[in-house]
Structures are given as C-alpha cells and as structure tokens.
C-alpha cells in the first residue's frame, strides 16, 4: 500500500514537473524556410574555430528584454547564450545585450560605434523596427539608419543578423509594422546579410498553435517560453550559417 502511494506520488510529481517545465525544443521547432542560412558568418566561424570563443552583442529595444523578476535571465539573449553553450561545449560563448527600451533605429545606429569598440563582437544581432513603427518614423529614414549602422558593423569587422519585430496580433490593428518589416527584408537582401524573421517565426508558431499569442495574461510563463524558443532558433541559425555543426567541430579539434 505504501509502495503504491509512493508510486502514485512519484508519478504525480513527475507529471507536475513535466507540466511546469515543458520540453521546449520539440514543440517550437522552426521550419528551415524561416531560418535562412545562405549567408556565411565568416567572423563567427573564425572566432569559434581559431579562438574557441564566440562574442555576440545584441543591440535592440524593449522587445529584446523581459520585465519581471530575473527578466534578463529569461530574455532571448541569455537563452541564446545558454543554447549555444549547450550545443558547442568547450567554446566560451558570451552574449552581451544592449537593449534599453524606446530606442529607435537611429538611436541604435548612433550608439553602435561605441558598443562595437567596447564589445569587439564577432557577431551583432540587431533587433530593430518596433520603436520606429511606434513612433511613426518615415520608412526612408529607417532605412538610412539601418544602412548607417550596418556600415559601422561591417567596418568593425563583425557579422550581423538583423532581427525584425514580434508578431503581435492584438496590436495589429493599431501598430503597422509591415512597412518596416519590408524595409528590413529588402535591406538584408540587398546587402547579403542574414535576417532572423521573428515576425514570420512567431506567426508560424501562432498558426501552428504553439503559442496563443492573443492570450491576455499578467504571468511571465509564456513570454519566457517564447524568448527561450527565439534563443534556440537563433542559435540554430548561427550554428548552421557559420557551419559550426557538431561534425565539423570534431574535425577542428
């Protein structure tokens, strides 16, 4: 009898544990078409293969951060760092985030030279567009700011991944992000750089029922899971685009 009770308790405990920490990797996979890897991340490859390290800088605004207790630990920059460390053991991965809220792309472009000089990253993840859409920045000015910042990143000898806005269905009818997303697609295409299509990926998750992005909640659980999934997807894109998959890592050792 005690044995049965203990068994039941164990099952209940395990079940509870599973419910609290659902296995993310299997449930928020992103199809390849949404994670382009056709531009080489040469600086990232060199950093990892030659120096056994990877320095990444995230430049963005409020949607790259999470409020709440330990927000920074659960936001996607930290999740990306964790995911890369898990997948490339022995490599010293460091992700630094510069993500004050309310930064427009022009603000970030102006701040980039100093950030690049301080951090010396091999890769910059530049999240842009949301604040510009909020403020109604002229898309032409937005494009000029992007070009200015991307020039600075190229000059500093770093690779870059542009990240666009979140898919936010509840604010769709008030906040028009499409013109800015179009500019980012076009700039990425024209300059031959990678785009992390956060808008498309979150849209895919919403369509697939991975997340109910319409849901109203004051809790942080879903926001953290979304950021975790974004961090993982980013890690996959970086590893694939820089050809850092496990097999190759073995041969370089």
């Amino acid at each position, binding site marked *: 009898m005690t044995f049965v009770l203990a068994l039941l308790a164990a099952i209940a405990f395990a079940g509870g544990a599973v419910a609290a920490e659902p296995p993310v990797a299997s449930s928020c996979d992103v199809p390849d078409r949404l994670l382009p890897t056709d531009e080489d991340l040469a600086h990232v490859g060199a950093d990892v293969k030659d120096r056994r390290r990877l320095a990444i800088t995230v430049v963005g605004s409020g949607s790259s951060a999470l*409020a709440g207790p330990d927000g920074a630990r659960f936001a996607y920059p930290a999740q990306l760092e964790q995911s890369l460390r898990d997948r490339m053991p022995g490599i010293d991965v460091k992700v630094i985030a510069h993500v004050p809220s309310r930064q427009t792309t022009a603000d970030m472009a102006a701040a980039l030279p100093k950030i690049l000089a301080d951090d010396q990253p091999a890769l910059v993840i530049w999240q842009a567009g949301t604040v510009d859409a909020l403020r*109604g920045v*002229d898309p032409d000015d937005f494009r000029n700011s992007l070009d200015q910042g991307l020039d600075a990143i190229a000059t500093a000898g770093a690779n870059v991944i542009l990240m666009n806005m979140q898919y936010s269905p509840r604010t769709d*009818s*008030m906040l028009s992000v499409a013109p800015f997303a179009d500019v980012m697609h076009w700039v990425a295409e*024209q300059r031959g750089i990678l785009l992390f299509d956060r808008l498309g990926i979150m849209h895919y998750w919403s369509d697939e029922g991975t997340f109910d992005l319409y849901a109203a*909640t004051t809790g942080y659980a879903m926001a953290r899971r979304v950021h975790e999934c974004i961090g993982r997807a980013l890690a996959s894109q970086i590893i694939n685009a820089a050809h850092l998959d496990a097999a190759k890592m073995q041969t370089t050792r």
Partner: protein
Amino acid sequence: MAMAPPPVSTASERDLRLDLFRGLALWLIFLDHIPDNIVSWITIRNYGFSDATEIFIFISGYTAAFVYGRTMRERGFVLASARILRRAWQIYVAHIFLFTIFMAEIAYVASTFENPLYAEEMKILDFLKQPDVTIFQALLLKFKPVNMDVLPLYIVLLLLFPPVLFVLLRHPNIALGGSALVYALAWRLGWNLPAYPNGVWFFNPYAWQLLFVFGAWCALGGAQKLGVVLRSRVVLVLAIAYLVFAFLVTLTWHFESLDRFMPGWLADWMYPIDKTDLDVLRFAHFLALAAVTVRFVPRHWPGLKSPLLRPAIVCGQHSLEIFCLGVFLAFAGQFVIAESSGGPVLQTAISLIGIILMVATAYLVSWYKGIEARSSPSRVKSRDADLAGGEA
C-alpha cells in the same frame, strides 16, 4: 484662346464599369484591412504591384470630374466648388466618425489586454494618456490610425480639385502635365505632408494626385483620345507582358525558394516598390490592368446587366458609405478574431459576412436614396448627380 470646353463623353449614361470596379475595389480593401486574413490571398495585391487603392483613387477622380465637371460647365465655378467642398466635408466627418470607433476599440484593448511579451508593442496605447494632443492631431488629419489613410488622401485631393477641374475643362493636357510635374517634383524633392507623431502621410498626396487627376482627365475626353492607343494590339501585348512580369516578381515574394531566379541587378533597380509615393512600377501596373480591362470589358458588355455583378455595382455606387462600413467591419472583424484567437474558418466567415453586410447596406442606401429622390420632385433632375455626385 478661349475655346469652349469639349463636350463630356456621352454624359447621359453612367459607365457601369466604374461602379463595378469601384465596388470590387471596396471589397478588396475590406479584405486587405483584416490583418492576417486568409481570404485576402485572393486580392490583387498578391498578384502584381498595384492594389485596390489605385483602382479606388482612379475611379474616384474619374467620377468626380464626370459629375462636378458638368456642374462647373453648366452652373459655373463657384457652385461646382461649393459642391466639391461639401463632399470633402462629408468625407471629413465620416473619417472622424471612424476615428471615434477606432478610439473605442483601442481603449477597450488598453483596459483588457495585458501580456508581458508585448510590453513594448503596448506602448502604442500611450497616446490614450494624452487625448488632448491625439484628438487634436486627428482633427488636423495628422494623426491617422492604421488603415485610415485613404479618406484623408481623398479629402486633400477634393480640397484642391476646384482649380484643377477648372484647368482640366479648358486645357486638359496642361492640367495633366502639371499633375505629372508635381508628381515628379515630389519624388525629386521628397515632398510629403507631415504626420503625427512623426514621419509623413502613408499616401503621399503629392504623388497620388497623379492617379486622381489622370482619372479626371480620362473622364473629360481623355479616354476617347486614348482610344486609338487602347485598341492597338501592341499596347495590349505590352500590357499583358508587364502584368505577367509583375506576377512573376510577386511569386518570388511569396515563395522564398523562387528568390534565386530574381537577377540581382533587377532587384537593385526595382526595389523597394514604394506605395507611399506611388512608385512608377505601381502606376504602370495599374495602367496595364486598366488597358487590359477596358479591352475585354467594353462599355456595353452585357455582363454588366447580369444579376451576379449587381451587388458589386451597387456597392460601387455608394462608395463613401460602403468604404466607411468596410473600415468599420474590418475593425470589428479583427476584434472578433482576436477575442476568439483566430483561425482560417473564422477569417473566412468574417470575410463573407462582411461582404454580405456591405452589399445589404448598399441596397438599403440605394433604396432610401431612390425614395428620397421620388418624394422630392425638385431633386429628380439631379438624380444622376446624386448617384455619382453623392458618390464622386
């Protein structure tokens, strides 16, 4: 050289094609205004450069010239101007009414929706904290919520229309040339109207006026002048070739894998295809569409009398009412989708119900205007003006 204005093209009978295509454009605008609507895959913006907005603005210019051109010729500049400005005022009031509905929706979302994931996006609601500024800027047409850009454009175009029409009636080609010059200067010098809190108008009036004035020019005899061009086989072939080209380009937007077939030099030259400033590629795409349409749908095409097309025609005949209703229904539909977490079935249902409501309302308005016209004999003679003038 005071030459008499040319007679308006067989002005007695209304060209039902205008109503048909304006009605269809209104349906497409409604479908496109529901974000992520699966049904919006059928709308023309996915198959070429231009979209329903071009059709709407062109036909609006055409009917405005058709109706007020006759008034200006028969009753003089002052009365025609007064009617045009009255129309602009009606549209302004309609726009502010829609803005009020929009504010109600926003306020509701602000008080019910919360999600830490969207802390940044929700800052769009901050303007509720300073309604004094927001409402004032909306009254000035500087603050325009998403999808509420078309009517302000229309208002500005009508405000400037009296002098344009005056010149169009006397020297149509000079008026059209002037319009093209303004368009070119706007591109060259970056003209646009300022918006609040930042940036510029989504539909640049300096650029989009070209389509409106071109429509007006066509209504005042330009269409006949173009008749020779439009009947030429070469033009038809060129137009179809361009439409096919645009279609192939749009395919590369929808299917990432096709992108590699797009030559780099072509992409560099072509992109971005600017909607705000009415990109030449968009304008050309509209011209090609119009050329092909006019060729295959002649003015007295029997299909225009078919009951199947009647609903679209009736919608096109009451465009202001139906346009506003469409904007409202898009808000409402979006709201229902959000409240029930979406889904393709719901999107399809909302799209269908929306169009049915638009058609039903158009019939209702049509019936009511008919009653009014019959009951006040003094208005009968302006029946056509009401039909179109109500709807210029």
